[in-house]
């Protein structure tokens, strides 16, 4: 990981902490290339256990407020690691992630063992920080089991930390694990548009599984959030086309809009033919007045 990202995160921390809080973080003996706090002696290099203990103890020394980030800071983070965002994080979460970035990765065995120990001993807020930090950790393949486990776990905050606004799954999940993540997000009634890489990782299997899922929901008299059909457009086939007809027949306007958007994206001629039957919807899609963003909640 680049030193630039560590520094960018430190800058956000610095602008969100009191002098005492910043000093506490520095007193943890962390090495911070290129970062100097006025009036504070240059820190030494912390041992892993010092960093790990600071990771745990952070709430005892830092306020639990939500941090503020400027547009420039946001852009800088995103430039370094596309999709990485700290919006809405608490100061403790950000500081914990930053402390993790200070662990020296040069001895792989030691580094992995330390991170694993933190996972093993973590309570919920610590898990949130650990999963949020995955895109920044060295040896990304090492964390795959943990990451897929988080998707399985049902812990609300932890699930969000891995599934939403986190670029790690897009980059490292297998198709099976990715599809599970997306389905579970839908199943948990969470907004899929907050999943990083949703478009990039769309696939036919997911589209078909979604159809099965929708049929189960419909049989139970329940609905499916309209925007999930954005995952199906490119893969429309006869089965999915029948689902589109079901949506066009729905009483909910959002369902009809979703069908129109999905059909418009489909290479299948029958889909265009179906869409043409709903003139008003076709017009708003073609003119760009209607987009998936209208269905994002």
């Amino acid at each position, binding site marked *: 990981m680049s030193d630039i990202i560590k520094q960018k995160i430190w800058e956000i921390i610095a602008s969100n902490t009191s002098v005492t809080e910043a000093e506490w973080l520095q007193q943890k003996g962390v090495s911070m290339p290129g970062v100097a706090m006025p009036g504070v002696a240059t820190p030494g290099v912390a041992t892993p*256990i010092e960093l790990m203990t600071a990771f*745990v*103890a952070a709430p005892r020394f830092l306020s639990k407020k939500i941090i503020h980030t400027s547009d420039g800071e946001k852009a800088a983070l995103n430039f370094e690691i596309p999709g990485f965002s700290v919006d809405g994080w608490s100061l403790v979460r950000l500081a914990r992630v930053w402390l993790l970035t200070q662990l020296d990765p040069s001895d792989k065995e030691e580094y992995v063992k330390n991170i694993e120990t933190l996972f093993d*001993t973590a309570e919920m807020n610590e898990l949130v920080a650990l999963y949020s930090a995955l895109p920044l950790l060295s040896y990304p393949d090492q964390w795959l089991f943990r990451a897929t486990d988080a998707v399985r776990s049902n812990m609300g905050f932890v699930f969000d930390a891995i599934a939403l606004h986190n670029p790690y799954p897009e980059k490292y999940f297998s198709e099976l694990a990715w599809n599970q993540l997306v389905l579970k997000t839908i199943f948990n009634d969470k907004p899929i548009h907050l999943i990083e890489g949703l478009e990039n990782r769309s696939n036919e299997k997911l589209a078909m599984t979604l159809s099965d899922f929708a049929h189960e929901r419909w049989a139970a008299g329940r609905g499916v959030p309209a925007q999930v059909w954005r995952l199906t457009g490119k893969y429309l086939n006869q089965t999915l086309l029948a689902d589109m007809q079901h949506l066009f027949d729905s009483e909910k306007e959002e369902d009809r809009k979703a069908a129109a958007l999905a059909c418009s994206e489909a290479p299948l001629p029958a889909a265009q033919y179906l869409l043409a039957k709903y003139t008003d919807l076709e017009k708003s899609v073609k003119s760009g007045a209607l987009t998936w963003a209208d269905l994002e909640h």
Partner: protein
Amino acid sequence: MCANHTEITPNPSHFEDSEEASQAPAHRDIAWNDYKDLIKGMRFFDPHIHMVSRTTDDYQAMNQAGIVALIEPAFWVGQPRTGLSTFKDYYSSLVGWERFRSSQFGIKHYCTMGLNSREANNEPLAEQVMEILPLYIYKEGVVGVGEIGFDDQTPAEEKYYRLQLELAKEAKLPVQIHTPHRDKKKGTERSMAIALEHGIDPSWVIVDHNNEETVKSVLDQGFWAAFTIYPFTKMGNERMVKVVEQYGPERIMINSAADWGISDPLAIPKTAALMKMRGIPDETIRLVTYQNAIDAFGKSGQIDVADFESGYAVDQSEKFHGNSILRGGQQPAPVKDFLVIN
């Protein structure tokens, strides 16, 4: 916890006055209806109870009896643990599932973290536990290092006791000392002497499981004196009343140390009732069954009385790691009895 349960028959401890014990009703014989009016409106804080080995019925009864918060010290689970993983799981349960379960019955749950004296004697394992202990003592809601101290009073126990005193000092956390069942007087004195030797302010140390023989010295040296109301092996509550009559409420607190043995999670409310019957002033009762524990463990900076002093909100539909306390077919209280399930 901490009774010596290896004996098959209940063993009146060496300090117990057997004549008195046979005459006075044991607090475990007092039924709820006998004392509920006496403690009406009182709030209790149990600073030592091992909920991991108690049932849901206990939580419900404790809540009904006015217990609003408790501290669960890390200790012995009744059989030796075989590896580091079981320690990790146990410690994690104290800040995780058990805390959640408690919240579901309207009781705020704190804990103390430590390597217990018995298991300090397994040195290879103790070494591993000490490595991860710093990752637990700093967690939110951890109000002390405990319960630590002596059991057999071996050199290994002393070594890990000293190491943990240093940890507590470093972390600025109170220390909760378990005093031994056998050779208690000497063990208590030794525990205090070592704590002082490490430069720990006695007002940061809660010495547990006191009796008539130890209390004076503990108070005289400036430590907190905690008393465990535990049938057969520790204090009876008749005796507890006398201690309070003699020493007053300053730096004295009462706990149940209820665990997997024959013990009583309602020991505090019952003792409060008994004190009330004997004419002990309400303020004294409040101090020894509630406030003193908060003052002592509150030095950790981890206790906010606003979390429980005006009641504790319960939402039994909440989940922890996707799991609810409710088992098949159970509905969150208040029970909603719908015929049609959507």
